[in-house]
């Protein structure tokens, strides 16, 4: 019944506007992090990320005059630029922090000792001195300038590819990957067999088992922490990847079985019965018919489990990360950075975005399956 809205332009406009506001509200925080991760520490600290998208006028931190000295007309001249870009527009400048906006661009200012300094609008400056400046302190230039948007990928280079950086994410990235992939694949296989048994085989206690799995679906994994840590220590696994994989498998199974069973039950009975009549065994039916047909459900669960293990913090804290910190994962690394580098947004934003980027890609590529899985998993 789209015609209700369609017939009233005013209502259509109101719906469009409210939706746009809602979407903007939801997108804005993430956008902030993304934009910040491409700005330098100075830029982030001196202005809000939203102002970086357009040309902005701001006070530039003091820049000391530097450059090669050239003798010209009996004077010693240093020429240089305040900004890398020529698109900057200086509106005022000064030579002391007390009066950072004392002079207009193009004005020639006399300094001590007969030297003159001038800054023109595009940020070029000329220092002209009657005597060589070697060994003396050169003046600092304070300026207020409108600079066009300026972004850098330096943060990413420092965090991903600089092996000396202790805040680096490269190791944590690979650790997370190491946790995630086996922890996604193994439960699928185990669950698929169990789901088939629960969907298409008849045996006493089946209804009870299904009910038990629905119940286990909501058991908080908080309860499992201490008993399992004890168990892992007793059987010699201790803290490490193996224990983490096992834990993720155990915690992911109820949802996996539940999703897959619901899907498999809906497969057409005829196909399975025909195959049985033709003499196929249960094992053959499962691998040749059920598994290929269940691909959408398998994909749904794979995405869930991938997102959950990639984004997990608690399981990694308890079962994986030991005191050496060699096996740290990205979420843990970020929490650590929040503690030690709380104000350094260029580090935090970049690190966080690296960890967010992979799930976001998976999300946008496979959204269809995620939605299907959600619908199968909850609408009852």
């Amino acid at each position: 019944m789209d015609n209700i809205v369609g017939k009233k332009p005013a209502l259509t406009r109101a719906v469009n506007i409210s939706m746009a506001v809602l979407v903007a509200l939801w997108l804005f925080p993430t956008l902030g992090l993304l934009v910040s991760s491409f700005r330098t520490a100075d830029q982030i600290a001196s202005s809000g990320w939203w102002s970086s998208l357009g040309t902005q006028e701001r006070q530039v931190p003091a820049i000391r005059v530097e450059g090669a000295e050239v003798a010209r007309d009996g004077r010693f001249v240093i020429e240089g630029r305040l900004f890398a870009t020529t698109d900057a527009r200086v509106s005022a400048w000064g030579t002391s922090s007390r009066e950072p906006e004392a002079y207009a661009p193009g004005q020639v200012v006399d300094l001590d000792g007969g030297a003159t300094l001038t800054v023109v609008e595009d940020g070029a400056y000329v220092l002209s001195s009657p005597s060589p400046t070697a060994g003396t302190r050169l003046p600092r230039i304070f300026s207020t300038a409108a600079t066009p948007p300026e972004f850098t990928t330096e943060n990413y280079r420092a965090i991903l590819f600089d092996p000396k950086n202790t805040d680096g994410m490269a190791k944590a990235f690979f650790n997370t990957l190491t946790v995630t992939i086996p922890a996604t694949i193994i439960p699928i296989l185990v669950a698929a067999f169990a789901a088939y048994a629960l969907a298409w085989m008849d045996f006493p206690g089946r209804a009870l088992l299904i009910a038990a799995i629905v119940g286990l679906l909501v058991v908080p994994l908080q309860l499992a922490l201490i008993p399992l840590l004890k168990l892992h220590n007793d059987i010699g696994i201790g803290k490490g990847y193996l224990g983490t994989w096992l834990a993720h498998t155990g915690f992911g199974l109820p949802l996996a079985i539940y999703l897959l069973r619901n899907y498999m039950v809906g497969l057409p009975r005829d196909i399975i019965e025909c195959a049985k009549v033709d003499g196929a065994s249960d094992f053959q039916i499962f691998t040749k018919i059920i598994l290929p047909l269940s691909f959408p459900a398998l994909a749904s669960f794979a995405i869930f489990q991938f997102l959950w293990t990639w984004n997990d913090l608690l399981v990694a804290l308890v079962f994986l990360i030991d005191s050496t910190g060699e096996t740290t994962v990205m979420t843990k690394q970020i929490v650590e950075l929040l503690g030690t580098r709380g104000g350094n947004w260029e580090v935090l934003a970049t690190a966080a975005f690296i960890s967010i980027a992979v799930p976001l890609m998976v999300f946008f590529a496979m959204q269809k399956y995620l939605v299907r899985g959600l619908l199968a998993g909850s609408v009852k």
Partner: protein
Amino acid sequence: MNPALQGLITIIIGVGGCVGYFYGSNLFLDKVLYPARGPHIGRNITRANMIRPWLFLAPALLALTVYLAYPVIETLRLSLTQRLPGGGYEFVGLQNYNKMFAEPKFWEALQNNLLWLIVVPALSTMFGLLAAQLSDRIRWGNLAKSLIFMPMAISFVGAAVIWKLVYDTRPIDQEQIGVLNALYLFFGGSAPQTWLTIPFWNSFFLMIVLIWIQTGFAMVILSAALRGVPEDTIEAAIVDGANPFQIFFKIKVPQIMGTIVVVWTTITIVVLKVFDIVFAMTNGQWETQVLANYMYDKLFRANDWGIGSASAMIIMLLVTPILIWNVYNARKEMR
């Protein structure tokens, strides 16, 4: 050994082991134990078919028992005991619970948790319903849905960083880089606020993060439910002269009430387990403690397994009604 290599080997062993187990055990059942030939062929087939389901189920059941069912029992036992110095446990009855109830921090956590339980599911469902209804009515609805759904893919920790930037505070003489403070000053606030340290209200700033994440979930499910509302009921309402608001609140919402309840309870479960957001943003300081983080504190910082397990049991207790409700519904449906 290189962890990546170890991971690869685990995948091969894990996958190969699973396939090998299922294939091998089936083969053993059919060819060796109860072969479908010889004098007892009929009996053998029946027996093999009685055992086969359990072969299929065995690995899953083992994992479920060890990793979910056993811990519930064990946590209950630990919550009633106390670790003795030098190993061993001593049964202490309800002492751990009594000690926990005497701690103000526990009551603070419980109180906050109850607040979360009311606010987060309510607002997530509300925004989800709003987004579902609006996006079904516009041309770029699918894009809008994608963007609102997107936070679902972001980790709680990532979300914590995202929102910490929103809540960031700079001294008053500097430019604010957090949106919230910038807006606050723009609309006449006198001084920048450190939002996460204002008791009581800071819990709400943490809740916003979870609402932001969960709204997409609510929207996706409710949007599917809204599409399932029979057209003739809506047509009838239009013929009777109902306005869009009446159609939404009096025709559509009552028909999807069942789904709203499902969404509400699912988000409730998420709220009860919420740990990462509080852990990363305030770590329970400034009166923002919640049960899951309180439990983590007790278990791994204070190393007190008794009280830690007792608080885990409180979480379990709060989940139980939903657990029973879910099982009840699932069974009703199977019949």
